[in-house]
C-alpha cells in the first residue's frame, strides 16, 4: 500500500471524525457510531495479530532451544484459556472462569503486591532531602503514608485533614497543570497526524 494512500485515508477519517463532533444530525451521529464500532473491530484484529505473533515467536524460540520450559508453559497457558472457553463457555462456574479466578487473578495481584517492596526499597535509597524540592517530595510522601496508615489518626488529629487538604489543593493544582499539558500535547500531535506532518506510524525508512 502506497504511503500516500495511507496518508490520504488518515486525513479523510481524521477530518470526518473531527467534523462530526460539531453536528447533531442523525447522519453525523450514525457515521460516528459506525466508525467507532469499526475502530473496535479493527483493534480486536490487531490484538489477534499480536497473539498470533506471540505464538509464532515462541514456537520458533522453542525450536531453537532457548528458554524452552518457560516458553512451553506460556504456550500451555495461552492455549488453556480458549480451549476451556470452547469446552465449557465463559459463564459463571465455567472452567474458563475457574482458571481466571485460581490462576490468573492470584498471580496478577501478587505481582502487583510485589511492587510494594521494590517501591519501598527504591524510595529508601533514593529519598534524601538534599534540596528544597526533594524535601517537599519526602515531606508530602511521609504525610500521606502516615495519614493513610493506622497510626495516622491516633498520632495527631490534624494529620488526615492536612493530608486531604494537600491532596485536594497543591497536589490537585500540579495535576491540573499536567493534564492541561497532556491535552495540549495530544491536540497538537493529533493535528500533526491528520495533516501528515507526523508520519512515524507509517513505519519504514522513507
Amino acid at each position, binding site marked *: 500500500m502506497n504511503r500516500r494512500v495511507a496518508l490520504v485515508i488518515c486525513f479523510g477519517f481524521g477530518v470526518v471524525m473531527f467534523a462530526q463532533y*460539531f453536528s447533531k444530525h442523525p447522519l453525523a451521529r450514525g457515521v460516528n457510531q459506525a466508525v467507532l464500532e469499526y475502530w473496535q*473491530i*479493527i483493534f480486536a484484529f490487531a490484538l489477534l495479530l499480536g497473539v498470533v505473533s506471540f505464538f509464532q515467536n515462541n514456537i520458533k524460540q522453542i525450536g531453537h532451544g532457548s528458554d524452552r520450559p*518457560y516458553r512451553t508453559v506460556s504456550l500451555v497457558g495461552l492455549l*488453556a484459556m480458549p480451549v476451556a*472457553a470452547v469446552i465449557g463457555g465463559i459463564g459463571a462456574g465455567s472452567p474458563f472462569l475457574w482458571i481466571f479466578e485460581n490462576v490468573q487473578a492470584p498471580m496478577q*495481584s501478587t505481582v*502487583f*503486591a510485589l511492587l510494594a517492596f521494590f517501591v519501598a526499597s527504591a524510595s529508601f535509597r533514593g529519598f534524601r532531602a538534599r534540596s528544597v524540592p526533594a524535601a517537599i517530595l519526602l515531606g508530602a510522601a511521609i504525610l*500521606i503514608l502516615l495519614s493513610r496508615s493506622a497510626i495516622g489518626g491516633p498520632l495527631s488529629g490534624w494529620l488526615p485533614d492536612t493530608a486531604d487538604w494537600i491532596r485536594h489543593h497543591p497536589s490537585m493544582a500540579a495535576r491540573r497543570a499536567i493534564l492541561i499539558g497532556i491535552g495540549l500535547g495530544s491536540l497538537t500531535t493529533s493535528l500533526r497526524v491528520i495533516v501528515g506532518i507526523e508520519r512515524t506510524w507509517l513505519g519504514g525508512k522513507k
Partner: protein
Amino acid sequence: MDVGTAIAGVLTLAVLSFLYRDNPVYKMAESLLIGVSIGYTLVVIWSSTLVDLLFRPLFLDGMLPLIIPLVLGLLMFGRFHRATSSLSRLPIAVMIGSGAGVAIPAMLDARILKQLSATVMPVLTASGIPDLSAIVIIGGVVTTLCYFYFSREHKGALGSAATVGTWFLMVFFGTTFGYTVMSRMSTFIGRMEFLLTEFLHIAN
C-alpha cells in the same frame, strides 16, 4: 482445602519467591501468567468484540456494511508476509486517523477547557477574606504551567515561577507516591491474608 485454593496458594508463593531472588520457580509462574493473561484477552476479545459486534450481526443479521471492518481487520495479517505487509497500513491509517479526529475535541473539552474552568475561581470570600485554597490552586496551576513552558529560558520572573512550579510538582509526586505505596501494601496484605487463612489455615 479445594484444588483451586491450593493452586492459587502455590502460585502466590511462587511469585513471592522473587523476593529472595530471581529463580526458576518464579520464572515458571511468570511465564504461566503471561500465557494465561494473553489467552484470557483473546477469549474476551473474541466473544465481546468479534462475535458480538462483527460475526453475529454480519452473518446472522445480514448487516453487510460490516464487511468493511472485516476486510480491514484481515488486512492487518498482511504484516506476516513481506509482499503484503504494506497493506496493513490501510487499517492502521483508519485507526490512527479516526482516533486523532475524535481526540481533538475530546482533549480540548476534557483536558483543557474543563480543567481551566475548574481552576478559575474567586480568590476572595463573600466577607472579603482571601481564600487560601483558591489562591493555592490558581498559583499552583500557573506556576506549574510556567515550569512546562520551554520556549524561553527559565530566568527572571519566569524562572522564579518555574521554581515554585517544581515545588507543586514535588507535592504531587509525593502524594502520588504515598497513595501508590499504600495501594500496593493493601494488595500485599490481601495476599498474606489469603495465604495465612485460606491456604495455610494458620490464622482465622
